[in-house]
C-alpha cells in the first residue's frame, strides 16, 4: 500500500510537470462548453440573400421590406440579372435568391395566380431547407396580409419539453462530458504506458520488485483524479455560465461517472498493452474510440438516421451509454428506474475490459 502511494505520487508529479498538456486538458472542456453554449448554433440567422426584383412595384417593395425586417435574413444585394446572381452564388456571397417576376403586382391585385421563384444554394442542403421554410413562411404571411385572408384550420400549439428555448447546451454538455472523460482516460493512459515501453523504462519497472498491477494502477490513478476534477468543473460551468441546472441526483451522476471513468481507463490500458509505439496507440485510440464517439454516440448527429450497422457499432461504444445516462440525469432528472439498463450495459463493458486487460497483461509478461 505504501509502495502504491509513493508510486502514485511520483506519477502525479510527472503529470503535473507537463504544464502544456495540463493546460490543454483543463482548457479543452472550458473552451468546448463555452463554444457549444454560446458561439455555435444551428439556428439560422443573418443569412445573406439576394433579390432580383423585375417588378419594382408597390407590392414587391413591400415584400422586400418585410423580408428585411426579419432577423433571419440580410438582404444585402439588389441584383440586376440572373448572371449577376450566379456570380454572387459562386463567390459565396449569397445563400438564396428571390426572383420577383415583372407582372407580380398585377397578378396579385387582379386576383390571378402570382408566382415567385426561390433559388437556394443546394450545396448546403440542411441550410437550404431551413431558409426555404423560413422564407416561404414570410412570403405566405405577406400574401395573407395583402389579400386579407384569415388563418383557418388546425393550428398547432407547440411545447418544447425540457428545453423550451431550443438551446444547444442541454445536448452538448453531456456530450462534452463523455468526450473529455474519454480523451483523458483512454488517450492519456494508453500513451503514458506505451511511452515507458518505447523509452525502455517499462522493462526497468517490470524487473523491479514492484508488482505489475501496482505499476498500472499507479499510472491510472492520477488520470482518474484529473477526470473527476474536470467533471466537477464542467458541471460547475454548466450550472453557473450556461444556466443549465442538474435536475437529477448528483450522487447518482458521480457514481455512474466513476464507472464510466474506470471503463475508459481499462480501455486505455488494454490499448497500451497491445501496442508498441505512441503513434500506434494514438491511432488506435483516435480511430477506435474518439472518432466513433464523436460521430456515432448521438451527440453530434441523431442516432436514428444512421444506417443499422452504424447504430450497432454505436452500441458497443461505452461513451454512447454514458452520454444517454448523463442526459437523463442532468436534463430530465430521471433516476435509476429509467436508466438501469444503460448502467448495466456500462458495468458489463467495464467487467469485460477488466478481464481482457488482466489476461493480455499476463501474456505480455511471459
Amino acid at each position, binding site marked *: 500500500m505504501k509502495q502504491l502511494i509513493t508510486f502514485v505520487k511520483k506519477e502525479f508529479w510527472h503529470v503535473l510537470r*507537463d504544464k*502544456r*498538456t495540463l493546460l*490543454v486538458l483543463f482548457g*479543452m472542456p472550458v473552451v468546448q462548453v463555452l*463554444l457549444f453554449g454560446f*458561439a*455555435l*448554433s*444551428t*439556428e*439560422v*440567422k443573418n443569412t445573406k440573400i439576394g433579390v432580383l426584383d423585375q417588378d419594382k412595384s408597390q407590392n414587391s417593395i413591400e415584400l422586400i421590406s418585410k423580408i428585411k425586417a426579419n432577423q433571419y435574413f440580410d438582404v444585402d444585394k439588389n441584383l440586376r440579372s440572373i448572371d449577376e446572381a450566379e456570380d454572387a*452564388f*459562386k463567390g*459565396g456571397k449569397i*445563400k438564396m435568391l428571390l426572383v420577383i417576376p415583372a407582372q407580380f403586382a398585377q397578378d396579385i391585385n387582379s*386576383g390571378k*395566380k*402570382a*408566382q*415567385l421563384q*426561390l*433559388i*437556394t444554394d*443546394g*450545396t448546403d*442542403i*440542411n441550410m437550404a431547407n431551413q431558409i426555404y421554410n423560413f422564407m*416561404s413562411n414570410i412570403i*405566405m404571411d405577406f*400574401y395573407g396580409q395583402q389579400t386579407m385572408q384569415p388563418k383557418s*384550420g*388546425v*393550428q*398547432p*400549439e*407547440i*411545447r418544447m419539453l425540457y*428545453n423550451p428555448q*431550443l438551446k444547444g447546451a*442541454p*445536448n452538448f454538455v453531456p456530450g462534452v462530458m463523455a468526450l473529455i472523460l474519454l*480523451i483523458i482516460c483512454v488517450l*492519456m493512459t494508453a*500513451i*503514458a504506458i506505451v*511511452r515507458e515501453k518505447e523509452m525502455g523504462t517499462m522493462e526497468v519497472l517490470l524487473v523491479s520488485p514492484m508488482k505489475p498491477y501496482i505499476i498500472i494502477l499507479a499510472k491510472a490513478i492520477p488520470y482518474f483524479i484529473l477526470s473527476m476534477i474536470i467533471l466537477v468543473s464542467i458541471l460547475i460551468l454548466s450550472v453557473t455560465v450556461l444556466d443549465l441546472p442538474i435536475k437529477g441526483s448528483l450522487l447518482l451522476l458521480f457514481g455512474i461517472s466513476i464507472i464510466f471513468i474506470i471503463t475508459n481507463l481499462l480501455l486505455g490500458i488494454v490499448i497500451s498493452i497491445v501496442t508498441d509505439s505512441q*503513434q*500506434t496507440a*494514438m*491511432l488506435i485510440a483516435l480511430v477506435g474510440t474518439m472518432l466513433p464517439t464523436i*460521430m*456515432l454516440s448521438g451527440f453530434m*448527429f*441523431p442516432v*436514428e*438516421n*444512421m444506417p443499422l450497422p452504424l447504430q450497432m457499432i454505436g452500441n458497443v461504444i461505452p461513451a454512447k451509454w454514458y452520454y444517454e445516462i448523463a442526459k437523463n440525469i442532468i436534463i430530465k432528472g430521471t433516476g435509476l428506474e*429509467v436508466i438501469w439498463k444503460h448502467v448495466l450495459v456500462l458495468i458489463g463493458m467495464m467487467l469485460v475490459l477488466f478481464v481482457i486487460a488482466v489476461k493480455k497483461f499476463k501474456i505480455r509478461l511471459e
Partner: protein
Amino acid sequence: MFRTLFILIKKEFLQIFRNKSILAIIFVMPVIQLVILPLAANYEIKDIKIAVVDHDKSTQSRELIRKITASGYFKIMDYGENYNDAYQEVEKDKIDLILEIPNNFEKDLVRENNDKVLIAINAINGTKAGLSASYLGQILQNYNQQIQLEMNPELETVKKNSGLEIVPKFWFNETYNYRLSLVPGILAFLVTLIGGYLTALNIVEEKEIGTIEQINVSPIKKRDFILGKLIPFWILSMVAFTIGLLVTIFVYKIQMQGSYLLLYAFISVYLIAILGMGLLASVYSDTQQQSMFMVFFFMMIFILMSGLFTPTESMTDWAKYIAYLNPVTYGVDGVRLIMLKDSGLMDLLPHFGFIIGLAIVVISWSVLRYHKTS
C-alpha cells in the same frame, strides 16, 4: 544544397514507410472517414417516434393521424387517451413527440373552422426538435387545405386560378443529393487533420528520441532540415487528398464542376499553411503527447468553428471572428466552391490571400522560434 535536401527527403520517406501506423493514417483514414461520416452526419430525420393522445376519436382525427403516418417521417408507437401516460414514455426515451387532439376536435373544426392541437416535443436535441416541429407543421398545413376544400368544394376553382405559388429551385444540386453538402467539406477537413497531425508528431518524435540534437550539431542547414521534414508530409498529404477525391468522385458519384488545376493549386497552398501549423505545434512541445494534445485542441476548435456542421452566419459576433481566422473555414469553403460551383480564381482570391498570409506567418514564426531553442 539540393543534394543534402534530396538525401534528407529520401531518409524521411524511408523512415515513414517503416512505420505501419503512419501508412494507415494516410491510406485508411481518408477512406474510413469519408465512408462513415456522411452516413452518420445525416440531419434528414426519419421515423420520429410519436404518441397520439386522441380525446376525440372521430373521423377527422383519424384522417389527421393517417396523414401523419403517410408522410414517412413519423412512426406512431402509442395511441391512447392519457397525456401523462404518453409523457412517461417520453421520459423513458421511448417517444420523441406527443400529439394531443382535443375533445371536440371534429365539431369545432366543422363549426368554427378553427381548432388547436397540442404538440409536445422532447427538445433536448434542439435541432431535431425544430425539424420535427416543422415537418409536423407542414403536414398540418396540407391537412388544413384538404379539409377546407372538403367543406367548400366551390373553393377549388377559385384556388386554382389565384393564390401565390413559390417555385423552389436548388442550384448546384439539382438532384437534391444530401452527400454533396458534406463530402467535399469532410475531404478538406481530412487533409487538415492528416497533414497537421503527422507533421507535429514527426518532428517531436526526433526531439523525444534525441536524434534532433545530432542533426543540430551536424552541418545540415536548418532550412534544409525543415524543408526535408515538410516536403515528404506535403507529398503524403497530397496523396491522401487524391485518395479522398477519388472516393468522392467514384463512391459518392459527386461530379467535379470546377477545374482540377485550381483545386490542386488551392490544396497545395492550403497544405503548406497546415503543415506550417503542425511545425509550429512541434516547435512548442517536447513530447509527442504534448504536441498531440495541442494539435487536438486546436483541431477541435477549428472543426467546430469551420461552418461545416453549423452555419458561420448564425454564430455570435466574437465567434465569427474566430471563424474568419480559422484556416479550416477557408479550406472547407474553397473545396466546396471549386468542386460544386465551378468558382474561379477570382472568387477564391480571399481564400488564397488568407492562406498564403497564414503560411508565411506560421513558417517564419516556427523557424525563428526553432533557432532560439536550439
